[in-house]
C-alpha cells in the first residue's frame, strides 16, 4: 500500500483496493520499463487523457471496428469500449504465460487425439468416460479420423486471471472458435497513434505478425501433397456479431472470406465459386460452430454450412481449423481435469494452474458447493459469454436459494469455484482514473509448432467492482504491452 502513497499526478486520487494492481500494487519493485510507463502516465493531465479517449472512440466508430447487433432490419454497430491506459506485462511474466499456454495447447491436442482414437485416458480412469463420451460436444464423426499433424486446436484462447498475489490462473480454455484477436491488433494500432508519447522508446513486443503466422500455420496443416494450398476463412456472414473480426483476419492473411454458399463439394473435394468457375480449397479457417458446418451431418436446417464438407474432411481432402469436436476439451467440466490431463500426457507439472474447481457432478463437489454457495462462483458448464452464472457474494438470499434448487435438479450441469480476487488495472472512468478488474486472453496459433501472440486481449470490467469482463455484459478492452526486456 505504500506505493499508493507515492503515486501522484494522474494517480493522486487512485484508490488502490486490496487486489493485485497491474501497475501500482505489484508487491515488488517494478522493473524499469513498468516504472517508466507509470511515471509517464502520472504526468498526464486527466482532461488530456479524456480528450484522447474521445478521439479513440470516434475513430473506432468511423473505421467500423465494431461488433454488430442486428435488431429488426437495422444493423447497429457497437464499439467495444477501449481504455487508453495499457496493461503492461514484464518479459518474465510473459515468459511464464507463454510457456504455460504452449503446454496447455500441447496437452489439449494430445487429449483430443486420444479421446477420438484409443481413449487411454478414459480407460485409465483419469477422466470419467461418461464426461467425455456423453459430452454434447463429443463428435462421433471424428472417431478414428487422423488430422494433419495431430493438430485439433489450431487457434486457442486461454482465459487467465491473476489472484491477490499476482499469480496467473487459468479460468477457461477456448478451443472452439475463440474470438477477440482483432481487437488486440486494432487496439495496438490505435494506441500507438493516440498515445505515442507513452510508448516512445519502450521495447514493446509487436503484434502484427499474427496474420502471417496464422496463414502459415493454416498452410502447414493443409492436406499433404498440395503445393500452394488455398486457405479461406469461412464466416457465417455479415449478420454475425463477429463479422468485423472475420473481415479483419481475412485481410491480415490475404485470403478470401467465404460464406457457406460460396463453397461446394464435389467428389469429396471442396471448391469455392469464383468468376472463373469452381476453384479448389484446401484449408478452411472456419468461424462457424460445429453444428452449422454441414447440414448433411449436423443441423439439417443450417443454411450457413456446406453440404458434404464433413465427408471431404474425413477423406482428408480439406483441413478444418479448428477441427470438429474440440468443444469437449474446453468444456467447463473437462476443464476441472486439465491439471491431471497435463500430467497424464506430458509427465510435467502444469506451468499455469487452474482456479480451484469443484465438479458438481461429483458428490463431494456438489455438497461442497451447496454448503458454501455464498462464497462461490457457480457456472453452468455449457454456456459461454458469462451467461447464467451465479456470483455468490453478490447474490441475494433468494437468488442463492434458487440456484441451490437448480444445482440439485441438474448437478452435472455445474461447476463451482472460489471468488478470485481478480487483479485490477488503472482505468479511465467517469469519475477519474480508478481500479477495474481485468483478465487476459492470450492467443496461441498451432501449425507445426505453437506460437503465442505476445500479449493478448486484456478485457476490463468497466463497472466498479464487477468481475464480468465479457463484451456482451459491459466489458471493454485494453492494449496489452509485453515488454521485451
Amino acid at each position: 500500500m505504500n506505493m499508493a502513497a507515492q503515486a501522484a499526478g494522474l494517480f493522486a486520487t487512485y484508490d488502490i483496493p486490496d487486489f493485485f494492481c497491474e501497475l501500482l500494487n505489484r508487491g515488488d519493485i517494478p522493473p524499469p520499463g513498468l516504472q517508466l510507463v507509470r511515471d509517464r502516465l502520472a504526468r498526464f493531465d486527466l482532461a488530456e487523457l479524456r480528450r484522447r479517449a474521445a478521439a479513440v472512440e470516434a475513430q473506432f466508430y468511423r473505421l467500423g471496428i465494431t461488433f454488430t447487433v442486428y435488431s429488426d432490419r437495422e444493423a447497429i454497430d457497437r464499439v467495444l469500449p477501449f481504455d487508453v491506459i495499457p496493461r503492461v506485462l514484464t518479459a518474465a511474466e510473459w515468459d511464464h504465460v507463454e510457456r504455460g499456454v504452449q503446454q496447455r495447447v500441447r496437452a489439449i491436442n494430445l487429449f483430443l487425439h486420444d479421446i477420438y482414437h484409443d481413449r487411454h485416458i478414459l480407460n485409465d480412469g483419469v477422466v470419467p468416460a461418461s464426461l467425455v463420451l456423453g459430452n454434447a460436444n463429443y463428435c462421433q464423426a471424428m472417431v478414428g479420423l487422423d488430422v494433419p499433424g495431430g493438430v485439433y486446436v489450431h487457434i486457442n484462447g486461454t482465459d487467465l486471471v491473476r489472484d491477490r498475489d499476482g499469480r496467473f490462473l487459468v479460468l477457461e480454455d477456448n478451443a472452439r472458435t475463440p474470438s477477440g484477436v482483432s481487437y488486440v491488433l486494432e487496439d495496438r494500432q490505435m494506441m500507438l497513434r493516440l498515445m505515442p508519447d507513452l510508448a516512445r522508446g519502450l521495447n514493446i513486443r509487436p503484434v502484427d505478425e499474427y496474420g502471417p503466422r496464422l496463414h502459415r500455420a493454416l498452410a502447414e496443416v493443409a492436406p499433404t501433397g498440395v503445393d500452394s494450398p488455398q486457405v479461406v476463412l469461412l464466416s457465417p456472414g455479415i449478420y454475425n456479431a463477429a463479422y468485423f473480426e472475420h473481415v479483419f483476419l481475412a485481410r491480415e492473411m490475404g485470403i478470401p472470406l467465404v460464406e457457406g454458399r460460396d463453397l461446394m463439394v464435389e467428389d469429396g473435394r471442396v471448391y469455392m465459386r469464383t468468376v472463373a468457375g469452381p476453384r479448389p480449397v484446401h484449408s478452411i479457417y472456419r468461424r462457424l460452430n460445429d453444428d452449422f458446418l454441414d447440414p448433411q451431418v449436423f443441423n439439417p436446417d443450417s443454411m450457413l454450412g456446406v453440404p458434404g464438407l464433413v465427408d471431404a474432411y474425413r477423406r482428408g481432402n480439406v483441413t478444418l481449423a479448428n477441427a470438429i469436436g474440440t468443444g469437449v476439451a474446453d468444456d467447463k467440466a473437462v476443464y476441472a481435469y486439465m491439471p491431471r490431463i497435463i500430467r497424464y500426457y506430458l509427465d510435467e507439472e502444469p506451468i499455469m494452474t487452474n482456479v480451484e474447481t469443484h465438479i458438481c457432478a461429483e458428490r463431494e463437489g456438489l455438497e461442497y458447493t451447496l454448503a458454501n454457495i455464498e462464497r462461490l462462483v457457480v457456472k453452468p458448464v455449457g454456456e459461454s459469454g458469462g451467461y447464467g452464472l451465479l456470483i455468490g457474494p453478490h447474490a441475494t438470499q433468494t437468488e442463492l436459494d434458487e440456484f441451490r434448487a437448480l444445482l440439485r435438479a441438474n448437478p452435472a450441469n455445474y461447476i463451482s469455484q472460489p471468488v478470485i480476487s481478480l487483479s485490477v488495472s488503472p482505468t479511465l472512468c467517469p469519475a477519474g482514473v480508478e481500479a477495474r478488474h481485468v483478465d487476459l486472453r492470450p492467443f496461441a496459433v498451432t501449425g507445426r509448432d505453437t506460437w503465442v501472440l505476445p500479449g493478448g486481449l486484456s478485457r476490463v470490467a468497466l463497472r466498479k467492482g464487477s468481475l464480468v469482463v465479457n463484451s456482451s455484459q459491459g466489458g471493454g478492452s485494453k492494449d496489452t504491452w509485453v515488454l521485451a526486456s
Partner: protein
Amino acid sequence: MTQVSVFPAPVMPGLRNLLSRYAESTMWLSRYMERIENLARLIEVTSTSVSATNLDAGWDSVIRINADEGLFFQHHEAATERSVVAFYIIDANNPDSIVSMARYARENARVLRPLISTEMWMHLNVFTRWVMELGPNDVGAGYLSGLCTRLKQDCQTHFGITEGTLYRDQAWLFYILGKHLERADQITRLIDIKYHTLLPSGVGVGSDIDMSQWTSVLRSAAAYHAFRRVLPEGMTPANIVGFLLKNDGFPRSLSTSLRSVYSVMGSLAGEYRLRHCAPIIERVEELRVTLAEQTVEDIIMRGLHEYMDWIQRELRQIQNEIAHAFWPPAVSVQSTGPGRMEQMQD
C-alpha cells in the same frame, strides 16, 4: 472509333480469381452509388427548373423515370415537390429512395470489406449514417439544393476514393462494369421520359418550345457546359438527345458508357481469360453499332421511345448474362470444362 484501354493489365500475373459473390456485390455497390448520384442530380435540377411557373410541374417525370408510379400513388395523391422529394430521399419504404440505396450500397460494401480499402468503407459508413439520419426538415425547399449537392459530392468522393485505393484486379473491372451499365440505363431513362414530356405529341423537331426545360435536362446530366462547348449554337431537342446518346467525349453519354462496358468485358475475357464473355461482348457491340450507324434524326424518326426501350431491355439482358456467367445459382465442377483440371491436386 478508337479503342482506348483505360484498364491496364494487372501488375501481378496469376492473381486469384474473384469470388463470385464479391463480383456481384462489387457491381451492385457501384450501381447503387451511381444511381444515387443520378437521382440527386435529377431532384436538384427538377427543383430549380420548375419553380418559375408551376411549383409542382415536372415532379411526376421523376417518378416516371424511375418507373415508380405504382408504389408512389399507393401512398400519395399527387406528385408534389414535397411528396416526391420525401419519397425519393428519406422514405425507407421506397426501395428506390436514396436512403434505401445508401443502405444497400453499404450492405454490399460490408460484404466487400475483405476486399475494399478501409477508406472506402469508412466513407460509405459515415455517408450512410448521415443519410439515414435525414428527416423531413432536411429536405424542405430551402435546403434541397444544398442537400443534393452534398449527396452528389459524397458519391463523387466515393468514386474518387475507389479510383485511388481499389486494387486493380477483377473486382475493379466489375466495379467499372456496374457503374457504366447503370449510367447507360440512367441516361436512356432520362432521355426517354424528358423527350416525351417536353415535346407534346404532334409537335415536330425544331418547333417553338421552351428551351429552358431542355437546358435543365442537360444540367441534370452535368452536360450543359460540355454541350455549349461542342455545339454553342445548336440548342435543339434533337441535338441535345444526340449529344447525350452519341457524344464520345462526354463522360455520361450512352456511347461512352457502352465503350467502357465493352472495354471491361474485353479485359475480363483477355487479361483474365474468363469464359462466357463472348456472347456478352457481342451484345454490347451490337448496341454500339446500332448507335453509331444512325443519326439522331433517324433515331427520332424511327421512334425514340422504342429505341430507348430496346436499349434498356438489352442492358437488362447484359446484366442477366453477366450474372449467369459469373455468379450462376448452381454450378458444377464437371460443367466448367477442362480449365479447372490444372488446378486440381491429387
